[in-house]
């Protein structure tokens, strides 16, 4: 199956062109933009882990290793396209245009943080695995219904492919030729379960055959390849040619969440060593150097700018207004039922928590 679904790469592990077809498209500005977003979310991710360690936020979900997959896919989206991410795809959300402040609030257990953006169509991260795949199908069908030319993208992991909703979402999309891209990040693990025990199929891409749709396997550490693959799938979708399943082969460098201890189920030292070799940021840096579009001064100033942006955002998060107890009651229905009104009254009258 790996022959049938070869790993699409635009650059090799050394950063050199593997496939120069897309050179024009991947011009300096584009590549720099991809790099910028990868650096930004990498920094954000490191801050996230640190904040959690310091007890300044709740459980955090790191995505280090998956920056290329998340940024490459997010930047391929059009302004009006719809993103359906999971809990691990805040990197993609940020790259697409999520509100940083909102995202940070989320890690503080704030409902406000569930809604990552009011400007872009970025849905709250789906917690129950694979359940948002049919949503991406439905939102895509709504675009068709309205006669627009927008598409949707659903993010999900290797583990998600075992859930019924994965299957049902893809099947319905295939039947109605919905303009949706199913973007899988195969990071090798679902918490502790390695992908070899998650499925008996050699690749995830081949699961597309069940739906008579294209399945693409792409090197998820190659941001250029991910960008091109997702862009092509989106174009196809927008041309009315239906959904595509993309498997981005990637790695989760760290723990599943900050509450997880990966050494229970894998040799984390090995991963840490491998990490240095396959790091998607180092790869794109090599590529840029090879093309002589790398500029250390530019990189330093980016780095500084991002650090400042994040520090400011974190301090805003920490000084954010207290959670509003009534928020819990006021958005269940447009108008509260009497039951909710009564309960709201009970607790508000005592000034919040008991």
């Amino acid at each position, binding site marked *: 199956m790996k022959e049938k679904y070869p790993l699409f790469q635009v650059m090799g592990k050394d950063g050199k062109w593997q496939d120069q077809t897309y050179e024009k498209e991947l011009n300096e500005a584009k590549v720099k933009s991809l790099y910028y977003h990868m650096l930004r979310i990498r920094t954000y991710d490191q801050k996230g882990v640190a904040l959690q360690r310091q007890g300044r936020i709740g459980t955090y979900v790191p995505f280090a290793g998956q920056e290329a997959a998340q940024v490459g896919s997010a930047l391929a989206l059009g302004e009006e396209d719809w993103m359906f991410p999971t809990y691990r795809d805040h990197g993609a959300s940020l790259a697409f245009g999520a509100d940083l402040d909102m995202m940070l609030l989320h890690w503080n257990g704030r409902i406000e943080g569930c*809604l990552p953006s009011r400007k872009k169509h970025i849905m709250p991260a789906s917690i129950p695995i694979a359940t948002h795949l049919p949503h991406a199908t439905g939102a895509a069908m709504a675009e068709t219904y309205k006669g627009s030319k927008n598409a949707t993208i659903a993010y999900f992991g290797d583990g998600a492919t075992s859930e019924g909703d994965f299957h049902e979402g893809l099947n319905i999309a295939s039947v109605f030729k919905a303009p949706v891209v199913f973007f899988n990040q195969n990071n090798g693990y679902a918490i502790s379960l390695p992908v070899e025990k998650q499925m008996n199929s050699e690749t995830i891409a081949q699961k597309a055959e069940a739906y008579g749709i294209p399945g693409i396997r792409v090197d998820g550490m190659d941001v250029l390849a991910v960008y091109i693959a997702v862009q092509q799938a989106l174009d196809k979708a927008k041309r009315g040619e239906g959904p595509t399943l993309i498997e981005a082969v990637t790695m989760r460098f760290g723990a599943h969440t900050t509450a997880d201890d990966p050494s229970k189920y894998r040799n984390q030292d090995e991963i840490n060593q491998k990490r240095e070799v396959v790091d998607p940021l180092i790869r794109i840096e090599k590529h840029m150097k090879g093309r002589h579009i790398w500029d250390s001064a530019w990189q330093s100033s980016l780095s500084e700018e991002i650090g400042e942006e994040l520090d400011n955002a974190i301090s805003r998060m920490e000084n954010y207004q207290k959670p509003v107890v009534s928020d819990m009651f006021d958005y269940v229905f*447009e108008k509260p039922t009497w*039951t909710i009104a009564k309960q709201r009254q009970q607790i508000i009258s005592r000034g919040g928590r008991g």
Partner: protein
Amino acid sequence: MVMSKELAKTGEKVKTNSFNMIQAINDGLKTVLEKDKRTLLLGEDIGKNGGVFRATDGLQTKFGEQRVMDTPLSEAGFVGTAVGMALNGLKPIVEIQFLGFIYPAFEQIATHVTRTRTRTLGHYHMPMVIRAPYGAGVRSPEIHSDSVEAFFAHMPGIKVVCPSTAYDAKGLLLAAVEDPDPVLFLEPMRLYRGKRYEVPVEEYHIELGKGTMVAQGGDVSIFAWGAMMPIALEAAENMKQQAISCDVIDLRSLYPLDKEIIANSVQKTGRVVIIHEGHETGGIGSEIISIINETSFLYLKAPIEKVTGFDVPVPLFALENDYLPTTDRIEQAILKVYEF
């Protein structure tokens, strides 16, 4: 938004059709499809076939395959698809072929349909109606006869309604579609092809959350809905021979329940019989008792009686009439609370 019953009272003429419940539902769906381009129907066999009960008969021909969509056999999938549509500005009306087949979609309903407004602080909402034929008594195969409205009454973020007349069916359906939040619309199969009612041609809405008093009396309050209404009324009628007069209240909305209509009647009679075909334990009957405890404790003259389905899987049809509440069981319960 005219309440035609009211109109009728004021003597104004309203154009009506004489419809049974399934016709009223079909008419209601047609009305909303005509009125609002954002509405569309999804479900199994609802297109060409017009639905296994013909609720959607003729609608695909009239509105096309984009508005009346036959979906694959995939309840979680098409409810989830409807979630995506609703997020993106449409108003999907989903048919679950029988309520007993809603279970595969339970997760979509429990975590997405019902929570979207809350988790987006109102930025997105779910104007979705889920229709489902339900209940026993029509000799259906296994699983086709479940009455599990109580599950949904315990799920924050969805309203639950159930008409017992053709008139209410159309009025509640139109109100449910109009509602910006998700509504589970339960259709008692046993009443589909029952009595005809004068159903206004024009649009009219029956407010969600409101019950209606269908018979008045002073001695005992009877609360019921859906397919239990005809036998509740029959039992109440029979009790007149023993000079016992009953309030018979069709609750119509199961979440939220109509607290006022419950309290008003109980505070008058002090004696209560609740009827439902769902399982006794954890059924909506217990919730009504809880409301009475809260609102009318000092008025109660006797322990409340429930006449319900049992804590057993709804049996195959050879025994389904033994599972279902009967006029006789209701009459016994009325006597019991009356004589306490």
